[in-house]
């Protein structure tokens, strides 16, 4: 269909010729606002770090930064996946449980078959996650019920599965000692001083970001979230796309599970409990609209980094770690309020432009 049209219509009557083009101001404006949005998070991040460093210079010590990046890696991967789901005007609350399930599965695999190459272990973890995502996706896409409810249910169900599995397999906890050295080395491994796990997360973010921006199906995810009905009418396979988003998100949650296993190396049935809150928070703070259609995975990644930094920075600032949740909550509110403000300003500017044009 993308072939250029073969017949050129007759020219329009003279008096209907277009007024001179208003130029690219609209887009420029839009892009500026989005940049503002992501720079905002970055600024907040920098500010936080600076303040903390003043309070405790060792905050930027190699070890601490590495720990920070390590902790951020897992949340970032989750946030990347969640972004794909949220832009389609859905949400996946079950990621915490999926992480737990895949982490435990990977651990079990490595205990049962210590010879398993790391790559296989990673793929296995992702597969487990993908299956969970498939379950969510199928229910959401075929039964047409709100993802909030479905994934709330699977949040319970998947967690139940983990502990059921653990208790019936009589392996309640997988300790560092049980895991093969090859896999454990992954946790501490570095490339040019940067933790490998973090590099993995970065790679994931770049991949997802690139996909969402430069592939038709990626753009269609945004379309679906932006106007579901329009998506249907313009022939987008909504069900299939949403399903895909859930599966990919599941697979990434699975990957996060593997990273979790590699990093903490002690796995029990509670791994990843309550993560869903922070994941959604990261996305929202990163400027991903909760009702879909807009937001970038880069923003979400920055959001994840910011949340993690807050977590580690608060004690350094002599603040009770109790403040963390409060800070996260305040941050979410600030973020959505900011988005709203930007959106209104944008709309106002564009309306102004129309008013001028409509004469």
């Amino acid at each position, binding site marked *: 269909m993308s072939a250029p049209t073969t017949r050129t219509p007759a020219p329009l009557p003279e008096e209907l010729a277009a007024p001179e083009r208003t130029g690219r101001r609209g887009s420029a404006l839009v892009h500026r606002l989005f940049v503002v949005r992501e720079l905002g998070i970055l600024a907040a991040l920098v500010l936080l770090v600076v303040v903390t460093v003043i309070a405790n210079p060792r905050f930027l010590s190699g070890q601490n930064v590495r720990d920070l990046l390590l902790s951020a890696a897992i949340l970032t991967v989750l946030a990347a996946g969640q972004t794909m789901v949220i832009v389609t005007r859905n949400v996946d609350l079950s990621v915490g449980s999926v992480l737990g399930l895949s982490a435990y599965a990977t651990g079990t695999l490595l205990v049962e078959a210590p010879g398993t190459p790391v790559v296989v272990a990673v793929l296995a973890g992702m597969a487990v996650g993908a299956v969970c995502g498939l379950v969510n996706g199928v229910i959401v896409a075929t039964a047409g019920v709100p993802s909030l409810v479905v994934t709330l249910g699977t949040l319970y169900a998947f967690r139940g599965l983990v502990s059921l599995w653990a208790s019936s397999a009589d392996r309640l906890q997988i300790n560092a*000692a049980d895991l093969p050295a090859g896999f454990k080395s992954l946790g501490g491994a570095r490339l040019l001083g940067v933790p490998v796990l973090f590099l993995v997360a970065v790679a994931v973010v770049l991949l997802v970001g690139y996909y969402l921006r430069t592939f038709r199906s990626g753009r269609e995810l945004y379309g679906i979230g932006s106007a579901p009905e329009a998506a249907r009418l313009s022939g987008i396979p909504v069900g299939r796309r949403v399903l895909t988003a859930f599966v990919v998100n599941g697979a990434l949650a699975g990957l996060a599970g593997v990273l979790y296993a590699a990093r903490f190396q002690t796995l029990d049935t509670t791994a990843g409990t309550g993560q869903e809150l922070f994941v959604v928070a990261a996305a929202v703070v990163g400027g991903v609209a909760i009702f879909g259609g807009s937001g970038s995975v880069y923003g979400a990644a920055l959001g994840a980094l910011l949340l993690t930094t807050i977590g580690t920075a608060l004690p350094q600032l002599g603040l009770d770690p109790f403040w963390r949740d409060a800070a996260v909550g305040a941050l979410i509110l600030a973020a959505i309020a900011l988005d709203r403000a930007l959106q209104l300003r944008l709309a106002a500017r564009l309306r102004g432009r129309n008013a001028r044009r409509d004469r």
Partner: protein
Amino acid sequence: MSLFLTSRRVRGGLTGLAVAAMVLTTAACGGTTRGEDEGSSGGNDAAGASADPDAEIPADLAVAFLPKQLNNPYFDVAAAGSERAVGEIDGEFSQVGPSEASASSQVSYINTLTQQGADVILTSANDPNAICGALDQARSGGASVVTFDSDTDPECRDLFINQATADGIAQTQVDLMAEQIGGSGQVAILSATANATNQNTWIELMTEYAAQEYPDMEIVTTVYGDDEDEKSFQETQGLLQTYPELKGIISPTTVGISAAARYLSGSEYKGRVALTGLGTPNQMREFVQDGTVTAFALWNPEDLGYLAAYAGAALAAGQITGEEGESFEAGDLGEYEVGADGVVVLGEPTVFTADNIDDFDF
């Protein structure tokens, strides 16, 4: 028009709620403030009844094991001990428990046990008071309640099995640390939750003991890992950031010490910062072998569960009533005596080192 009425209706609802709130409040006498209310009506139904040391332990005792949380390795080992004991007295053993360590869900399970008419309830409290009401009902329903590992308000249970005397635990850990850091330098404590009864007692005692025995040893802070692996792991990070001069960490909780050990073994602090505390051999084996940890301590949780079960049986049989001075047989652990406040002490903790750790499997 409808606007005013709308909000008026809602306001009406609001006042309705306020009224309901008053129903709640006025249910008690006016002006109730703190401390003026000593009317304790704890279900001490066991008291009064006299103990018969020679009573037979009835067969088919229904013994229920209710841990803080299901699928927690430590409690699983303890449960195994209890199960063994119950087997020895031909009782019926069952383990129930919530999937999250919260007092409210423990209450729901205690209620279920009451309803099922359990003879003995062995439990470790998520909150010293929150489960009291439920336990009282269970006891008035005829159940004997034995707490272990983490006690409740003494009024709400018949016996508490203490893993070791608080002093014993505190001193062992401080001594172990002192040995490793040469008795001087900054030491931090990585505990479980801040309202975990036993941890707090130990920390108190450790601080006192250290102060008099090792004046150069400074306990700089106590942080809480909430018995969550990840949180403990990160709290350890935080400690080493905040206290560059830190010489050692004491973690009186199995989750905490293994998390801390794992962090140290993977960081530049390995070998430079000493670590000891309470941990299970299986979790710590690797770190003892790789030299991150030289020595740590713990009682044997299996024995703890074992003793708790026998204590419960003794209560149910009427051999004891929980009064101070009474004594009972606890299978191959031998005879135990009830101390003040109905506390039974398991014994001194075991110290695990590279030499003996492989003899244990729990």
